[in-house]
């Protein structure tokens, strides 16, 4: 991210504006890949005897967030008179950034009731709910626009069918050895088609990845191959995001969004303390399979630790209305990620970091 900012128009301006505008498709490629990986992870968690916890945590987080964001949006619309919708929208997305940011997701992970597996489901659910909410806000709540909703439905169903067919063929023909070209081709195709129709490519790729993963018998092996390539996708993606970040934006608005996002993170922290206490009182011990933990390779962790999912969702916002806010939101999300990473290095001895390092060591060993 920092390298991208340095190279971009906000830094040394080595790369001119035309080039940074021409890289949107590459950002979509990276974002779609991250969404696809996240969907595979979610299916794997679901399979690893965590199904109930995954569903419970996923649903509660999603509904909780959806209710919270909707309340923010509605209250914002009622209180503010001019440009009410845009301001309320900004508040809702700021809340989403706060809840979907890496620190919040790590706190979800520490909840003793669902310590393993479901933390990712929580993060996944927040991102998913955020994208769906944004999708409906972007239609100006005109649900009667049947053609558009129908088109989205067609694209989502096509994603599921293509994912399942490709997955089935992969399973019959190649077993656990992944064939890249049809796989990458389908991902790009769906990402492009969904973006053209105004549907978030992240949603389409989540559907595609979920259907693909459901058809796999040896999902761990297939996912390992997908994960191997993740750094090769994630590194250019983050640099490209850095290039798109514009530091010359209105800092007052950015400050408001950052404060709100930080407030939500604080709320998440309180929620975490409360739940830890409840969990301890109930005497529930963490449960989970070593297999799941061991399969958490560094590359996979890095997607979550660096806020890849959240950034990817924000990076594709320009394909939808309210795009005038997307540079600001991207700036806030990028700041969030960089500050969080910096804080992790400074507070290396914090519990979060210890858990994270122990996972790394376990994987490494």
């Amino acid at each position, binding site marked *: 991210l920092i390298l991208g900012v340095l190279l971009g128009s906000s830094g040394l301006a080595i790369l001119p504006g035309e080039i940074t505008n021409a890289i949107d498709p590459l950002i*979509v490629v990276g974002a779609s890949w991250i969404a696809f990986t996240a969907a595979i992870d979610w299916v794997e968690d679901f399979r690893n005897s965590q199904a109930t916890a995954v569903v419970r945590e996923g649903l509660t987080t999603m509904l909780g967030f959806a209710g919270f964001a909707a309340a923010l949006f509605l209250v914002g619309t009622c209180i503010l008179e001019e440009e009410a919708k845009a301001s309320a929208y900004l508040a809702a997305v700021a809340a989403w950034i706060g809840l979907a940011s890496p620190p919040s997701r790590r706190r979800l992970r520490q909840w003793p009731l669902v310590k393993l597996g479901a933390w990712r489901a929580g993060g996944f659910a927040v991102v998913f709910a955020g994208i769906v909410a944004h999708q409906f806000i972007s239609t100006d709540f005109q649900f009667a626009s049947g053609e558009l909703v129908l088109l989205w439905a067609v694209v989502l169903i096509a994603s599921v069918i293509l994912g399942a067919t490709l997955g089935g063929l992969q399973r019959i023909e190649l077993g656990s050895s992944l064939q890249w070209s*049809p796989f990458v081709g389908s991902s790009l195709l769906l*990402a492009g088609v969904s973006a053209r129709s105004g549907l978030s490519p992240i949603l389409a790729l989540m559907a595609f990845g979920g259907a693909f993963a459901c058809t796999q018998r040896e999902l761990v092996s297939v996912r390992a191959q997908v994960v191997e390539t993740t750094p090769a996708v994630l590194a250019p993606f983050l640099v490209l995001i850095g290039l798109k970040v514009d530091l010359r934006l209105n800092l007052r608005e950015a400050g408001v969004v950052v404060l709100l996002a930080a407030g939500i993170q604080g709320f998440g922290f309180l929620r975490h303390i409360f739940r830890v206490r409840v969990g301890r009182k109930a005497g529930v011990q963490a449960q989970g399979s070593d297999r799941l933990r061991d399969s958490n390779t560094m590359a996979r962790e890095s997607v979550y630790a660096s806020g890849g999912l959240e950034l990817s969702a924000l990076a594709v916002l320009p394909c939808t*209305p309210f795009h005038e806010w997307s540079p600001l939101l991207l700036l806030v999300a990028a700041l969030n990620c960089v500050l969080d990473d910096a804080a992790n290095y400074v507070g290396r001895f914090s519990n979060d970091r210890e858990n994270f390092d122990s996972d790394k060591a376990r994987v490494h060993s």
Partner: protein
Amino acid sequence: MKHSTLTRGRFLLLLVGLLGSGFAVELTDLLQVSLSAETWTTVVSLGLLLLGGSLLAGVAEWIKLPHLSAYLVAGILAGPHLLNWVDTASVHQLEPVNTLALALIALGGGVELRISALRANLRSLVWATIAQSSIVLIAASAVFLALQSQLAFLREMTSVQIAAVAVLWGILAVSRSPSACLAILTQTRANGPLAAFSLAFIMLSDVVVLLLLTVALAFAKAAFDPQVDFAWSSLQTLGHELLGSVAFGTTLGLGLVIYLRFFGHQLLLVILVVGFGFTDVLRYVRFEPLLAFLTAGFFIQNFSRQGEKLQRAVHEAGSLVFVAFFATAGAHLDLPLLYGMWPVACALCAGRLAATWFAGRVAARRAGDPEVLQRFGWAGMVSQAGLTLGLSLLIERAFPSFGGSMRSLVIVTVAINEIVGPIIFKVALDRAGESRDAAIAANAV
């Protein structure tokens, strides 16, 4: 039995994927809900070409055709002249894929070249270079001269000028396609004297063609403008270019060796950075990227122990990049132009094919090559692709008055050679028993 089931499965997926996605593409156009179509069309196009190419490859394998032909067909079908799912603007926007592919092809080609194999084939390579460069050049020029009445752009020229253009055409006929050769070898996993000889010859012939074209361009300029003498400075520039490319490639190879030795992970990312980043740097300093990457790969294979690592990474990345590269080339084919010029183009291609076959036989006999090279040594030299088109662009820039028309003719002949050449080479590898399938069948017997 299993094979046919798999092919049926692939075919089903092909239908589902392509029809479904085509439907979706059409639907978005129909409803005009696209919010920023230009940005995403490139992504859709690349996805269509990758999916279509790789799935058609399964069908091609069933009828014993090379994958490369399937990629081309996928591109032609989806391209602007048939289904128009990939429009002309998208084809142009996909040019960065070609940059990466050419870097990868050259790097992979260099890694495949072993000094031991070159030494073993030295006599064959020297004779093949002499015979192919001279016989094909003369024969192709002669066919071109014989067809001059059919070529409108020659009508205003003097006989000396026509002869100069014919020589330029002959040199273009001498050029081959390293990418097609490497793609076929990657697909068939061929191993044997024919595979080793073809790869080594085609990679080395690139340098010969560059040299020949530079000299011929200097003479041709003098033929078209009497005030221009033969410019020795152009040879000096070529020397700079060749030596500079080799030096740059060696340095790049050394850097990659250090990386592979001490880090060695995330090679895909490294290849992406090297392919995109260094190609532009090389073009900026006016070096030849193909030669530089070839040298880098050659250096890594022959002067370090890291060749295997790089070879594996290039193969993995190549499986994806080749599909995109050739499918884009298919979409790039100008079908109306091909339709309009096919009789002349077919005659030129037939002449080149016959000359290549004859030169191959002569060279193999003079060098005392084994039977397999005498029979099939010429087969890998029929394909033409990006290199020939690049050279025709140089001619167009040097001679704007007729270069455009000549380039159109080059595009048509390259299209034919691009389709026919890989098929001939694969059949030859199969019949020589060097492809993996042929080897498995022989072992079974």
